[in-house]
């Protein structure tokens, strides 16, 4: 008996595939950076500074995307920059997720004083102006990869906590949870086996969005000159360095910006796509 509704297939998310491909490409670049990158990202040659990309007159073909003011190869720095960008995205994304979702789940499911405590904690935490707080934080622990990740986690865990708490509360009120409790399963067991699976899709969606945000925060911190201190190239660092000579060497800023832009866009489109995929009722 052909029921029409089940055949309404979701239009294959072209955007979803494109973003997945881009992110996969980035992961490959990050892993095989030393073999792929044409040059050593740190190698300087003051006398071949600000060479334009290969298609522009006066370019040096060996530097495909040109060089920055210190004569370093822009393409290699972008490729190695992928490592830090993905590291920041995955580590801080996951940490934010674990802390935020964990607290949110506990507060949303157990309610009572746990909920009050966590909610007060969230309120206090969200009362801090994010950028200002990260500047202060980095001033305390000094710039570096670790401090950026810490700054992102410290600022953004509340985003997870709030959403997951609300979701856990609404799931908690549903009948299937009551029936699980009736079947004699402990409260914590119920939370893990019943609530978590249903809350998982939202966690995954938030996780991908969070990774995008992490990459942007790193760029903002570089703008305020607080990003990674070592020589290692980061997109945010290249963008802020390229800013001063935007008229003379636009490529130093433009190429990392495009890479950053595509990466964050891919994370957000992936998040949106997953959200639709996981949505129980086919829209």
């Amino acid at each position, binding site marked *: 008996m052909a029921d029409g509704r089940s055949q309404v297939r979701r239009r294959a998310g072209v955007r979803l595939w494109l973003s997945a491909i881009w992110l996969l490409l980035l992961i490959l670049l990050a892993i095989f950076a030393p073999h792929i990158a044409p040059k050593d990202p*740190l*190698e*300087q040659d*003051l*006398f071949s*500074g600000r060479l334009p990309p290969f298609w522009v007159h006066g370019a040096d073909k060996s530097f495909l995307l040109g060089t920055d*003011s*210190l*004569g370093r190869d822009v393409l290699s720095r972008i490729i190695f920059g992928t490592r830090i960008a993905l590291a920041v995205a995955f580590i801080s994304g996951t940490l934010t997720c674990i802390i935020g979702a964990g607290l949110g789940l506990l507060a949303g499911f157990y309610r009572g004083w746990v909920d009050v405590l966590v909610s007060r904690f969230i309120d206090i935490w969200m009362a801090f102006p994010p950028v200002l707080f990260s500047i202060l934080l980095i*001033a305390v622990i*000094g*710039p570096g990869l670790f401090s950026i990740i810490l700054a992102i986690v410290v600022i953004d865990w509340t985003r997870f906590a709030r959403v997951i708490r609300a979701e856990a509360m609404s799931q908690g009120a549903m009948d299937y949870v009551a029936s699980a409790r009736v079947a004699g399963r402990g409260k914590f067991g119920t939370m893990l086996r019943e609530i978590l699976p249903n809350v998982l899709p939202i966690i995954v969606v938030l996780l991908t969005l969070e990774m995008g945000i992490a990459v942007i925060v790193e760029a903002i911190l570089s703008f305020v*000159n*607080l990003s990674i*201190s*070592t*020589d290692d190239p980061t997109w945010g660092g290249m963008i*802020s*360095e390229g*800013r*001063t*000579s*935007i*008229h*003379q060497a636009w490529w130093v800023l433009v190429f990392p910006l495009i890479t950053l832009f595509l990466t964050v866009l891919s994370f957000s489109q992936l998040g949106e796509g997953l959200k639709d995929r996981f949505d129980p009722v086919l829209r």
Partner: protein
Amino acid sequence: MNLSRRSLLKLSVAAVATSVALPSFAQAIDELVIAYNVTLPSWDPTTGPSAVNPTIQGLYQSVFDQFILQQPDLKPAPGLLTEWGWNDDKTQVHMTVRDGVTWHDGSPFTAEDVAWSLERAADPATGNPINFVWSSLANFKVDGNKVTADVKQFDPTIFKWMYFLTGYVLPKAYYTKVGAEGFEKAPIGTGPYMVDKFEQNAFVRLKANPTYWGGKPDFDTVTIKFVTDAAARVAEIEGGSSHVTLEMPYEEYDRLKGSMNGYATPVSNIGMIFLNDIEVMLDPNVRKAAVAAIDKQAIVDRLLSGYGVPIDTLETPDYDAYDASIKTPYDPDAAVKLLAASGYSVDKPVKFTIQTTKGYMPKDYEMIQAIVGLWRKVGIEATIEVYEIAKHYELRAADKLAPAAFYNWGNSVGDPTTSTGFAMFGPSPHSVWDSKDLIDMIGPLWGEKDEAKRIAGWKAVDAYIAENAYVIPLLQYVQPILAAKGVVVTPHHSGALLPHLMKRA
């Protein structure tokens, strides 16, 4: 100090605009607008952190007069004091006060104001950061237009401080009447401009002081906008909403100087790398190799578009104790040999950390990256650690800086004590290198009464420092200034941008 032909070209000629003038400036400018690079936190030039911030002194010098006037080439000239000096055995100082000068509120300026300003600076309670200098004078006496005081402790640079940090004369009657907060709200001085309107962190509007003793300035009203972001400053002048701006990236200066009046003047501010007498820096070979491996001219030419004067001691050509004969040439091979003597090589490099600010001074971070790159070629592996300027002061005061630390040292007085002295003298909280030999060499110079002997003494210290590579002087900064066609600027070597030195073209 070798000046390559190219950087000489950039320095000597003020690139007067030849191509088409910007349309919006065809007509004369009645109100001058300056895009300034720092904000003015407080109007009291004698207390608080802003009193020792060199970049703000230009704003103070537009409204207040210093005891002694400093000319654009850093040399002193009669100011509010027409004549000053010590008595024969240097136990007393005497000063003659200029007459016929009035405060902005019309009240007369007298010797009483000078004595009171000096007493106030000497009093620790007011929080004057240079208290240790001013407290070397005591029991001030006023007699007509003469002021005398006893020298409790001889300081050869006392008169130089009168045209340096906190050396300003404030109105005694007005200040005592309105108090600190009142003064902050409505400051008055004897300077070329009066404060018309001040909006914190935004702008200050100045009106010309008609009765200024140094002659009424050319522009009647001047608005100084505080635009801390360099790209925004460039857009301001390019878009035409400001007539004069300073401290923009050198690349932008090169791009715009063609269509405007451009001035690139070496100022009394140097970039240097402190060396701390810890870890590997105790080995002279490492220090000397580190100095020899740096191609200062290449850094200036490639990174700073040629705007900068490489230096080999902490003195610049404008300073009193400058000695052109002291040389630490760029010699990478010598560096490799020196390192080999201590068992280091490109494969087995010496390792240490170098600290630097990022974005505090033009290309500070890129310069250190370039130096680390040059070092890597000879067998020195330095890892860069970025810190904020506040953290630098903290670490330096506690003598916990890394083996190498980049810093910029301003000294508009040009006296060796306030450059090599405070930077290299062990007991001073500001020095980083604390070896005994240097302390003994510098010690006697503090109180040296014979000026010629004193200067010669400091030159010997500089030579000794260069020979032992106790510090790595890098370059004297050049300050880029851009001005619209209708404005001719006289740059001041102290780096202060002074509206009253600006004339209509």
